[in-house]
């Protein structure tokens, strides 16, 4: 199996992608949305003509709401980002946007999140991430409890977690780049996407590990089998189904991305990336790593003999 033969190259590609993602996170930083940091987002569409951005900018700054970000949307619309607004401030803002009712507009959506609500959500999100990671680690340990030779079961778990991190870090890196260039914001759905990727990706790795487990069990009678060969054979037998199961999910995700609601667009894109790299990692990262670990295990044993 060529994947096992050239395992160092494939592992290298993964390492490079992860490093690149981490780097983009450090360089660009996270563009945190109002869900977490609090603030208000108002979307309006003008009935006839959209006023120039400069004109509105001036009158908005005069309101004294601090920094106001104005983004054009569609042909006639604006998205206005401010700090969280009270009822009266909201009315004043609409009044200003409609240029004192001379330019009629429709308010498409208004979302104001107080800072305490944002902090609560952040806490909740962190707690959910920790709990789901713990649950999945426990589940991996449980799923691989029976495989112990020649690579012990907790190493399967560890490798599954390494590939899990890989699958999460790359889409996050992608998101950070997107948010830098297209203004996507880190919101509640982003957290949901990360957590869903965790679930989807581990299931994919398990399909292949399950096959290795089965082949190991069947060949236990033959004394000395090359572990790398068994993994290679298992990969050969299962990479088609691994790709196919991911493809069905990717197909629906692409449908969601291209045709679905605007609000879930980045969500679908992140999940697609997560699915793609999840499949990639279970074939090109997790299994080669397994062989690499086994080889490292053998080396010191040989040295002591010599």
């Amino acid at each position, binding site marked *: 199996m060529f994947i096992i033969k050239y395992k160092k190259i494939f592992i290298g590609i993964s390492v490079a992608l992860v490093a690149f993602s981490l780097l983009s996170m450090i360089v660009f930083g996270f563009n945190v949305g109002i869900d977490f940091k609090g603030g208000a987002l108002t*979307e309006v569409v003008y009935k006839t003509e959209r006023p120039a951005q400069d004109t509105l900018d001036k009158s908005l700054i005069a309101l004294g709401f601090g920094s106001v970000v104005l983004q054009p949307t569609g042909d006639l619309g604006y998205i206005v980002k401010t700090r969280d607004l009270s*009822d009266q401030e*909201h009315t004043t803002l609409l009044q200003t946007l409609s240029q004192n009712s001379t330019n009629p507009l429709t*308010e*498409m*959506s*208004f*979302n*104001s*999140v*107080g800072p*305490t*609500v944002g902090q*609560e959500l952040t*806490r*909740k999100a962190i*707690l*959910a991430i920790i*709990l*789901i990671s713990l*649950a*999945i680690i426990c*589940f991996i340990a449980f*799923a691989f409890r029976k495989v112990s030779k020649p690579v012990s079961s907790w190493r399967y778990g560890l490798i599954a977690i390494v590939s899990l991190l890989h699958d999460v870090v790359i889409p996050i890196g992608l998101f950070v780049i997107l948010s830098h260039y297209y203004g996507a914001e880190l919101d*509640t*759905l982003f957290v*949901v996407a990360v*957590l*869903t990727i*965790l*679930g*989807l990706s*581990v*299931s994919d790795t*398990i*399909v292949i590990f*399950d*096959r290795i487990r089965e082949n190991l069990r069947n060949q236990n009678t033959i004394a000395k089998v090359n572990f790398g060969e068994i993994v290679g054979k298992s990969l050969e*037998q*299962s990479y*088609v*189904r691994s790709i*196919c*199961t991911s*493809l*069905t*999910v990717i*197909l*629906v*995700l*692409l*449908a*969601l991305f*291209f*045709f*679905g*609601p*605007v*609000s879930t667009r980045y*969500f679908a894109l992140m999940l697609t990336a997560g699915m793609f790299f999840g499949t990639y990692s279970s074939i090109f990262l997790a299994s080669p790593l397994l062989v690499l670990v086994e080889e490292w295990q053998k080396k010191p044993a040989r040295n002591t003999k010599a």
Partner: protein
Amino acid sequence: MWKKIVLALIILVLGGGIALFVFKSEPRLNKNFSTTYSFLKNHPFRLGLDLSGGTHLIYKADISAVPAGQVGDSMNALRDVIERRVNLFGVSEPVVQVQHGGLVSGSTGERLIVDLPGVTDVKQAIEMIGQTPLLEFKTEAPTGTPQNATVDKDGKVTLDMSSQFVSTELTGRYLQKAILEFDTSTREPKVSLQFNDAGTKLFAEITKNNVGKMVAIYLDGAPISTPVVREEIPNGQAVISGSFTPTEAKLLVGRLNSGALPVPITLLSTQTIGAILGDSAVNAGVKAALIGFLLVVIFLILLYRLPGLIASLSLCIFISIILALFKLMPVTLTAAGIAGFIISIGIAVDANVLIFERIKEELRSGQTIHDSISAGFSRAWFSIRDSNISNFITAIILFWFGTSLIKGFALTLGMGVIISMFSAITITRIFLGVFSFIGEGKVARFLFNSGLAK
């Protein structure tokens, strides 16, 4: 053999029935919907605020004055009052719920969440809730309490009223009704209050203990009337006479009667979605679901031929069951919820892919079609189980922790995972069983083999 065919037919008819129910109970798809059975009428899809348009408000309840054991009661009373308020304005299907503080919900205090479908005017929405008056009765502070007096630059001394009075247990929640009256001699409007039994007792006690002293009546945190008690009032009647205009007095009576708030609330966050935005999100969601479904069906049939066709049939039944459950439970659908449902379409056929790949493998190793099918199902089971468990864990924890947005996604995804195990394994197996007459000929082997690889 006949048994298998009958079983398959029963499932087909049941599946068709469920699909018919889903179709017939949707107002948009049926022309004469108003004349249909009430059972069908009562089960349209329930759309969340982001799809139907409306307002979502989060309030913080100030429970600092409520004794620890009564927090739950007060919050429920608060919810009832606000529900009554909202119903008064004729909002259809409002949702008013209490979110208790604690580790599980991740919030630091008591919250009240109000969903108002169809109300896109935030100002109006906040008014209908927030203007409910908070009525309090306070008694004079014992003599000797330090008083906060401020001296402004002109040398005028103002006394801070709040330190002069202390709160009592008597609040607007003990109010039975308020009536607008006019003073017979001065013609000034006044508001007379009638307390309920518990309130009457409290009021009697307060008046008894404070004969000759002032009792302050506070409305929304400000004193509106500070009458001096002349004698104990045992019948639970009080009168507020301030400098009201008749209109003000009338408004106050209306507001008091619709229920005074047991605890004060402040608005924390607002979310409003216009109906147009919601509509386009629904259309986009339906379109994405249809296209996603078609892509999966094409993929299955191209790759797995006959079994792929059968898996597509099970997928149709899966979708009917899920949609029927959305209606019957009912599940409130949001954009994220629809995304969860669409993803579950993709996950639903995962089990089929695993089984069919296994069947192909068994076929290649020279087994008969019949044996390959049973081996395929039994051997693929473990990886199906394991791979679904991890998704299910994620869905459960997300549901447990989530805000309403996350809950919608977790619920639809979790339901999808469970029901897909049933449809992809049991239903597909029953349908495949019917095809055992196909024999072992060349055509049969072609139909059961892969469409793209050899």
